[in-house]
């Protein structure tokens, strides 16, 4: 099983203890995870993603057996198609995009083109709903959470689209999932790091209704406690133990 939602690098709004690749390697081993898709944490707040991608590839280079790059492609910038080809050639396993940070509305044409291009290249488009809970978010972090209309528009863009959504809660997941056709629902996978366990048992509810095959494993390291998703799995009711969630590492290129 791999972690589809890890980062390295500093966070603009809070000091994080050693957000470095060699530490992530040890954390993955401790958590029993075989690898991770890794993004560059400062990237969402930088206008130009190219330097962030270079920093990401350089940081992960000594650890590429375990840490797979998830670089950024910004589709409203010139020559983004070439950037997409370049990062795929350099070994990207997923493409990250941050439409809220780039001021894009739900039906932004460039985001739609990126989703389709990623689909054509058979590489997942990885979208992050939020980095921190709203209650503790810096007043300087004004991007807002990713919305259901954004996600539904991208899931509907084309048959080849594959989305991985990190950091959604139950409300956003249900708003999106139940607004899609069954074919469109199968284009979307979700991590469950922000979905509540007992006593509300929202994760158990979603496993019963949406299905375990829609979920992948994500820790949101180095922002969140990596123990959260494992605890969520361990506290499932007995009849739902060891749900057949999907290993994002199996998404073929």
């Amino acid at each position, binding site marked *: 099983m791999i972690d589809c939602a890890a980062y390295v690098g500093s966070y603009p709004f809070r000091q994080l*203890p050693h957000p470095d690749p060699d530490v992530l390697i040890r954390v993955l081993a401790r958590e029993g995870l075989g690898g991770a898709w890794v993004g560059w944490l400062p990237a969402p707040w930088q206008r130009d993603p190219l330097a962030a991608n270079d920093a990401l590839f350089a940081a992960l280079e000594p650890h590429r057996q375990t840490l797979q790059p998830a670089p950024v492609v910004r589709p409203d910038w010139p020559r983004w198609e070439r950037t997409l080809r370049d990062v795929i050639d350099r070994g990207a396993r997923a493409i990250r995009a941050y439409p809220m940070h780039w001021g894009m509305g739900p039906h932004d044409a460039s985001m739609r083109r990126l989703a389709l291009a990623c689909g054509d290249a058979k590489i997942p488009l990885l979208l992050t709903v939020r980095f*921190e809970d709203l209650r503790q978010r810096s007043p300087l972090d004004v991007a807002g959470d990713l919305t259901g209309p954004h996600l539904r528009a991208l899931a509907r863009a084309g048959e080849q689209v594959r989305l991985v959504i990190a950091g959604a809660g139950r409300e956003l997941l249900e708003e999106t999932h139940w607004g899609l056709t069954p074919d469109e629902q199968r284009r979307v996978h979700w991590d469950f790091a922000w979905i509540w366990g007992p006593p509300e048992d929202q994760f158990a509810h979603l496993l019963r209704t949406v299905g375990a095959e829609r979920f992948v494993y994500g820790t949101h390291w180095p922002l969140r*406690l990596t123990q959260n998703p494992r605890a969520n799995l361990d506290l499932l009711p007995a009849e739902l133990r060891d749900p057949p969630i999907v290993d994002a590492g199996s998404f073929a290129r």
Partner: protein
Amino acid sequence: MLDTPNVYPDLSGSGVDRGMIDAAIDVLGVRRLLWACDLTMETGLAKLRALEVIGLSSDDLADVRWRNAARLFPAGTFPRCEGHA
């Protein structure tokens, strides 16, 4: 809170993210913190597990997990801890 030693914060809350427990221990020390889960039990379990990997001694770990609470609450509150705190 550093200047109010009669205040004991707990670790509950779903917004306790990575680095925050370490920071609380650095500032307040292990004798001031109480483990708690509030409502979200998976975040409570995650924090119990996180406490094990941030470099605390077994004695410090016991303080945060249960011993501080056993010292603080009235006798008889935690019968299983009687005589161990």
